Structure formats: structure tokens, C-alpha cells
């Protein structure tokens, strides 16, 4: 797994890529929680994620909960089909704000 | 007639066969129990380095269940034994007019013999049976299999903590039993011979060497190992559902008490040569 972090219109965007499994998800978790704790809105771009297991999904859940507590925005972007099926297994597709692309997120904001 | 002549050799044959089976089984069981001991020690010592340590909370939980509830009953029984030794001692020493020597007798027999033995037998009955029943129930309900398929070694998860807890608690309880036994002796002696507690204590301490105490404690360590291993090995070898659990539990208690008494005899023989 690798990640890349950038800013766009005052929102932090973390682009995750590769496999997010048991060994990698703690890194993703730290990144996500770090951004939330610094008081920013966060988009997690999952376009390049080839595989995500439940530890990765659990990190997303934790991030979303932290964002809600800090009253920050948190959304997933470009969730692949395989990642979506993992999310929907635990019905999390009905919980996370999910957008087709980063642009889609900013368009709905306007 | 013919019937008798044919059944005789058959009976003798089955008798020999049974004896053979029994000894094979005994050797097998000894080997199995020994393997359990070695594997438990392996996990206790090597486990932390392989990042698979035994669970400290599990050890403490076991220690609590072995020790805390057993302490009062062990205290009472040992106290009673101390009193009995004093009664018998004074009675028999009276013949020689050496009643005051009873203190030495009590001090030595309590610390070297009765403290460890009464503790061992009591813990075998209380905790050895509980251990056997717990492991047997887990075996029957496939919990042991579940541990194995999760990659959790059952010896590490179940046996090693129990062994460690026994090794800590049985000597501790034995020490308590020693104190209670001496106290029981002191109470009776003070009533019967008018010996003060301080005088009793002084004489006891003078009679006792470190060796006497440590002999008892070493024994109690051996008893602890016997109780833990006989309990778990019987538990693991359960067969036949709930009825089997009852059977191995009884077997575990009978066997561990027998082994404790035999081990005690052997130890006493070698330690006193």
C-alpha cells in the first residue's frame, strides 16, 4: 500500500493505493486519524485501491466516527466494486458518504 | 469339564493381556504427561521470545481460583492437624516424661510432611478436578479444536497458565499450612503444658532449619506439577460426552492424590538419607 496526501479547496484528500490488508491498515489508520485530529475535512480517494480487507474498512469506520465527533466532513471517493462489496457486506455502503469522484464531491457542495 | 479346561487358559490369557494393556497404557500416559510438561515449560520460557507469550491475566485468574478460595479451608485443616499432632505427641512423649519435646516434633512433621501433603491433597481435590473438568468440557465441545485451528496452541493457552499458577499457589498455600499447623500446635500446647506462645515460637525456630522448610516447599512444587499435569492430561483424553467429563474428573483426582502420596514417600526417602 502507498498513500498520497494533498489539499484541495481547504479539504484534505488522502489517495490510498494498492492492497490495504492487516499489515498495511495501521498506516492508513494513522494517516486518516491524523488529518481528522488536525481539524480538517477529509476525502479518502480509493480509486487505486486493489484490495481492502476488514481491518482497512475498520480504519475507515474509525476515521468517519472521529470526523463526526469533531464535526468534520468525511467521505469516500471512487470506491471500486470489490471494495464496495466488502463495505456492503456489513451494510456500510449505507453509512459512509460515498462519491463517484473528487469532482463529484465538490460539485454537490456548491 | 471341557468347558472349564478351555476357559481356564482363556482367562489367564486375558489376565496377562489386561496387565500388558494396563502397563502399555501407563507408559503411554506417562510419556504423554511428560510431553505436556516439556511443552508447557517451552511456552513459559520460549513463548515470549516467539511473540507468543502465555497470557498473564489467565495465570492470575487461575491463581485466584486455586488460591483464594482454598486458603480458609487449608488454614482450618492444617490448624486441626497441628492440634492433633500436639495431642498425640504429648500423649506418647508422656511415657518418657519428655512432653516438652513435642514442640520439636510438631515443627518438623508439619513443615516437612503435613503442610505440603494436606495442601497437595486439598488442591488436587478442589482445583485439579476443576482443571480436568474444564479441559474435558472444552475438548468435548470442540473448543480445543477451535483453539488449534485459530493457531492458538492449547498447551500454551490452557496448560502453561494452569501449571504456572499451580507452581506459585501450592507452595504459597503450603507455607500458610505450615503456619496454621504450628499455630494449632501452639494453642494446644499452651493449654495442656502451659507453654507460652513466645516460648513455643522460640523453640520451634530453634528446632527448624532452612532445610526443613525448603524440603516442604520443594515437595509442594512437585505436587503442584503433578496436580496440573494429571488434571490436564486426563482432561485432554476425555471421550464420550458429558459422562466422559465426569469420569476423567474423578480419575484425575484419584490419580493425582495417589501420585502425590507416592511422590511424597519417594522424596522423603531420598531427602532424608
Amino acid at each position: 500500500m502507498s498513500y498520497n496526501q494533498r489539499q484541495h479547496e481547504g479539504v484534505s484528500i488522502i489517495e490510498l493505493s494498492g492492497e490495504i490488508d492487516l499489515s498495511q491498515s495501521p498506516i492508513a489508520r494513522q494517516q486518516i486519524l491524523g488529518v481528522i485530529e488536525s481539524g480538517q475535512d477529509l476525502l479518502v480517494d480509493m480509486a487505486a485501491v486493489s484490495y481492502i480487507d476488514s481491518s482497512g474498512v475498520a480504519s475507515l469506520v474509525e476515521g468517519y466516527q472521529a470526523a463526526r465527533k469533531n464535526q468534520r466532513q468525511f467521505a469516500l471517493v471512487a470506491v471500486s466494486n470489490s471494495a464496495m462489496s466488502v463495505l456492503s457486506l456489513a451494510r456500510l455502503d449505507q453509512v459512509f458518504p460515498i462519491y463517484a469522484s473528487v469532482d463529484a464531491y465538490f460539485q454537490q457542495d456548491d | 469339564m471341557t468347558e472349564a479346561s478351555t476357559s481356564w487358559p482363556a482367562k489367564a490369557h486375558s489376565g496377562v493381556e489386561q496387565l500388558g494393556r494396563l502397563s502399555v497404557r501407563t507408559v503411554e500416559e506417562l510419556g504423554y504427561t511428560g510431553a505436556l510438561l516439556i511443552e508447557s515449560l517451552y511456552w513459559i520460557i520460549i513463548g515470549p521470545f516467539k511473540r507468543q507469550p502465555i497470557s498473564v491475566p489467565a495465570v492470575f485468574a487461575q491463581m485466584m481460583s486455586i488460591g483464594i478460595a482454598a486458603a480458609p479451608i487449608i488454614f482450618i485443616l492444617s490448624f486441626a492437624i497441628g492440634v492433633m499432632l500436639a495431642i498425640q505427641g504429648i500423649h506418647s512423649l508422656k511415657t518418657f516424661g519428655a512432653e516438652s519435646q513435642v514442640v520439636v516434633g510438631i515443627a518438623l512433621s508439619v513443615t516437612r510432611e503435613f503442610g505440603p501433603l494436606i495442601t497437595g491433597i486439598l488442591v488436587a481435590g478442589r482445583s485439579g478436578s476443576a482443571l480436568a473438568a474444564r479441559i474435558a468440557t472444552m475438548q468435548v465441545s470442540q473448543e480445543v479444536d477451535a483453539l488449534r485451528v485459530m493457531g492458538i496452541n492449547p498447551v500454551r493457552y490452557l496448560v502453561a497458565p494452569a501449571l504456572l499458577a499451580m507452581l506459585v499457589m501450592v507452595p504459597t498455600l503450603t507455607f500458610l499450612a505450615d503456619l496454621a499447623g504450628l499455630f494449632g500446635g501452639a494453642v494446644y500446647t499452651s493449654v495442656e503444658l502451659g507453654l507460652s506462645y513466645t516460648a513455643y515460637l522460640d523453640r520451634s525456630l530453634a528446632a527448624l532449619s532452612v532445610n526443613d522448610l525448603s524440603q516442604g516447599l520443594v515437595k509442594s512444587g512437585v505436587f503442584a506439577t503433578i496436580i496440573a499435569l494429571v488434571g490436564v492430561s486426563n482432561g485432554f483424553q476425555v471421550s464420550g460426552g458429558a459422562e466422559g467429563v465426569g469420569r476423567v474428573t474423578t480419575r484425575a483426582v484419584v490419580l493425582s492424590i495417589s501420585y502425590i502420596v507416592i511422590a511424597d514417600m519417594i522424596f522423603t526417602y531420598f531427602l532424608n538419607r
Partner: protein
Amino acid sequence: MNATLHQPVIEIDKLVTHYGTTEILHGIDLEVHEGEIMIIMGGSGSGKSTLLRYLLGLGIPTSGSIRLLGQDITRCDADAMYQLRRNMGVAFQGGALLSSLSVVENVMLPLREHTKLDEKTMRIMARMKLEVVNLGGYEDMMPAELSGGMIKRAALARAIVMDPKLLFFDEPSAGLDPVVAAELDELILRLRDAMGMTIVVVTHELDSAFKIADRITVLDRGHILITDTVTALRASDNERIQSLLNRTPSKERLEADAYMDRLTAG
């Protein structure tokens, strides 16, 4: 995806096992492919439970080999087996939840053993799996407080908490009412579809087997009678398979001599 679909993740080769001196399995050959749901069927005494035990690495076979994810579990060392177990989930017939731990602690157990994840992450993962099996909100109950169906679902949650590649399920519907059993079947299908798991189910329930199976293997007295799709199985003209499918008692021809020997032996 199609290429990997046909790679065998389980390969059993000439497996022979004994219980004491009795031979139980007489040379079993079986392959299970990635993403496949394989049902092992058979009556009691057919050897299906024995086969499962050996598949789980809980026994040492007399001869033959069992490869799981390419690893021969009859020969590999303890460390390799330990690593392999991360990729295997097992739901036992009676659940086999540790009675001293709460439901959520049971589900977290494999994570505690195999990962160094944050406590919070592990707890969320366990709760997610409990949601998957519809046990959300029951996490603090003890196993003794659960019904049979709930225990099976909790055991399934524990089996899948590590997202294993291989899932083994022993008698998912035994002892459950039909509605709960059907729910579990549904769940098994969803797990395969969402996670791409390879799933081996041991059962004697025909309805459930036909509903979820990609292929079914039928065991009879330690031999495999057939390993094929549901359609092919139904079309088979083997007498014993048909009697299993139609639930008729087996009416094989009696061998008079052998039968008399059995009755009068000794």
C-alpha cells in the same frame, strides 16, 4: 479472474486415515477451486467429519497428502502451519465458542493472536463481522446465553474475522429451524460473492446443499462416490447416490455367506 478461478486451493491426494486400527478413509482424491463452494455430503459413518478433521490439520493421516493454498499440511512445519491458519476460518458444528469469553471477545480472539492491530480497530472489525451475521448488539453476551442459531452465527463471525481465503463450515443447518438455516445458506453465498472465499461445507442436509453448492462430493464408507455439480449429481444412476438423494434406506443385495459369518462369528 477466470484464470485464477480454476486454480485448486485444496488438493487432497490419495488420503488414507485410520482410527486405531480401523481404516476410515480409503484413498480420497479431491480438488477444490478458488472461489468455489464445495459441499461434502454423506450419511453418518461416511467419513465426512473425519475428512474435515484432516483438512483442518487436526490429525496426521496414514498416507496421502493434503495441500491447502499450495502448502502440504501433512508435512509442513509448525511455523508454516501457523501462517497458513491465518488464511483459514472454521465454524464448528456446535460453535465451539470459548465459554469463558463474551461473544465479541471470542470473535476478536484470532485477531489478538495473529495481529498487532490497535484494540479499537480489532473491536470494530469484530463488531462489523457480528453485523454481517446479524448479531449486532449481542456482543457482550456470553455463549451460554445464546440460542443454537446465534451460536452458529457467532462462530461464523469468528471464522471470517481475519478475512480468510478458506472457510470451513461443519453442519451449518444441523439442529436449526428451516428459516434460520436458510438465512445461514444465504450468508454463505454472500460471503463467497463479497470476499471471494473458497468455502467447504460439510452437511447432510440436501436442501441446503443443493441451494449453495457449486459442486458436491458424496462420501460413502470412506470412499468418494462422486464429485460433481448439482445437476450431474441428480442425473447420476448410481444406486447409493440415488438412495441418498431420495432418502430411501440403502437396499443393496445381501451377500448371504458374509452375512451369516457376521452373525455367527466368534
